[in-house]
């Protein structure tokens, strides 16, 4: 095991963590502010990938297709999320966790079959734009350029979230709602509008994750369940509702998996569960303080 291998694996693990972060950040925001376990988050991610595919195919799978898909697909998913929030979720805010959870689970079932009806069963694939194709050399190991791209997008999203949450008035209201919903209501701010905003934003992040992963993998029915398990584990490890905890746990998960794959490649399937199990047994309430 030489230095180049370790370094490149670290790099790959980090870029893997970025996708985890983008998807989980949306989930944890929704957790924190709405106090809803959104099972449909994976479905939104899947929708992001399928919509990105459709846009890219419509534009002839060229580079324009990719960039436009990256722009539009998350927005489309955001719109869908908004419809879900205004049309369904807002009626059950006073119900207990289980009801909210099962409502989002009903969306998992519905979206899963709707995607099959709309897009069919065939495997879909979308092209990486020419500029991000191929690989580059890092300490003697060759790495895909797209992973480097993900390593840029991830921090940009994190910075954007930081800016929004701590520098804008709206973001501050979101944080306040997460900490003390009653107080926000007393102050005369309509917290349900905050909920709509946060749910839409969470949807945007899920859609972005889906659009980002789309060119590197197969777009297929069933991709929702896979990411959902990861996102749940990551969000719990990070501390429910804590975006920065999620950032840390995403990186731990990405890098931990990458090194797990390097050292125990035969049982890679149980690595995420081991990471989650160990961390949760050490710190049952998450790495960073939960929002509530």
């Amino acid at each position, binding site marked *: 095991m030489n230095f180049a291998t370790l370094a490149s694996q670290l790099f790959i693990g980090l870029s893997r963590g970025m996708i985890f972060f983008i998807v989980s950040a949306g989930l944890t925001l929704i957790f924190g502010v709405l106090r809803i376990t959104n099972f449909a988050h994976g479905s939104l991610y899947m929708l992001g990938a399928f919509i990105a595919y459709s846009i890219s195919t419509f534009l002839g799978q060229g580079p324009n297709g990719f960039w436009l898909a990256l722009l539009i697909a998350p927005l489309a998913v955001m719109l869908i999320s908004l419809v879900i929030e205004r049309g369904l979720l807002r009626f059950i805010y006073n119900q207990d*966790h*289980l009801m909210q959870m099962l*409502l989002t689970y009903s969306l998992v079932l*519905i979206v899963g*079959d709707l995607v099959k009806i709309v897009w069919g069963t065939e495997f879909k694939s979308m092209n990486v734009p020419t500029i991000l194709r191929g690989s580059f050399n890092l300490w003697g190991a060759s790495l895909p350029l797209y992973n480097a791209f993900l390593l840029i997008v991830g921090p940009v999203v994190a910075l954007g979230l930081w800016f929004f949450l701590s520098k804008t008035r709206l973001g501050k209201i979101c944080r306040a709602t997460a900490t003390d919903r009653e107080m926000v209501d007393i102050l005369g701010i309509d917290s349900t509008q905050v909920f709509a905003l946060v749910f839409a934003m969470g949807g945007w992040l899920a859609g972005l994750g889906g659009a980002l992963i789309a060119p590197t993998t197969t777009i297929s029915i069933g991709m929702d369940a896979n990411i959902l398990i990861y996102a749940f584990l990551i969000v719990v490890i990070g501390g429910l509702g804590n975006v920065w905890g999620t950032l840390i746990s995403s990186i731990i998960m990405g890098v931990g998996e990458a090194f797990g794959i390097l050292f125990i490649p035969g049982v890679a399937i149980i690595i995420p*569960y081991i990471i989650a199990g160990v961390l949760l047994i050490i710190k049952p309430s998450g790495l960073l303080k939960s929002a509530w």
Partner: protein
Amino acid sequence: MSTNSSSSLILQEKFRTYLGLGMAVAGILILLAIPSLISPYYVYLLATIFTTALLATSLNLVLGYGGLLHLHHAVFYGIGAYTVAIIMTKTSWPFAIAVVLGPLVAALIALVIGWFCVRLRGLYFGMLTLALGQLVWAIVYRWNALTNGDNGIHSIPVPEFLTSVNSVYYTTLLVLIVSLVILYLIIKSPFGLTLIATRDNPMRSESLGINVKRHRLTAFVIAGFFAGVAGVLFILVERSVAPSLLFWNKSAEILIMCLMGGLTVFMGPTLGAAILVVLSMIVGLYTEYWLLVLGLLLLILVLFLPQGILGYLLKSRNNKKPSMRGEN
């Protein structure tokens, strides 16, 4: 309220007791006679319903009565089934030992998982059950040498007298009734009432000197045990097992059953299980979009009938006579 009307209420009460008793006896008689009346497939379907009903009711001990967001109950179901499957195919131990060990191993795993989970509250509890449950799934899925991996274990030998559809039916029926009675007695016992108290007001319970965590853990283990019993029944019904039995969407299915029947009603999960099993069969005859139908159904339930079918029926009945509860 006058004594006159209260005595008529007592009469009414007595009448209702007899009526209930009569209906229960009639129901059990019909259930006993049923295998000779309907086609073997429906006998098998009923056995499936009994198995699933026990599974859902065992979850409801934790979910409805304990108020714990237990999101991965299928794990104990699967463990019970796998224990029997592995003993019967890999060892020469007798069937009786497998049957006893199935629920016990499930309870043991429940003890381990529960021990970590009861330290947490609310959603955290739920998320940790999900994470640890999936860990168990991954181990079962991956441990090829022991579990045959995702291929599952098939042609599991069971004693000759338990192979016919009818004997499986009567066995599952008997086990279901006995288990339901035990579960009911547990809920009505001081332990059960304390558990309900920890659900409704954990802080006050704690301050009254109740060890909330221990009560929750005990309930969790009991639920795991009965899920294991259901797992053993599953082996009787299907004689094969695969890891999908303990994947998280199976747990979601059980949750939906509990919700559908009513979380606050003892027989709710049984009704939910019956409806879901029958419905999935009927819908599956006509379309491959059963999951879409299930999703829409769940949506309607959550939005319009959150107390479940049985919960709704009982509530509307009780609402008509509000005085009854007030007098007691």
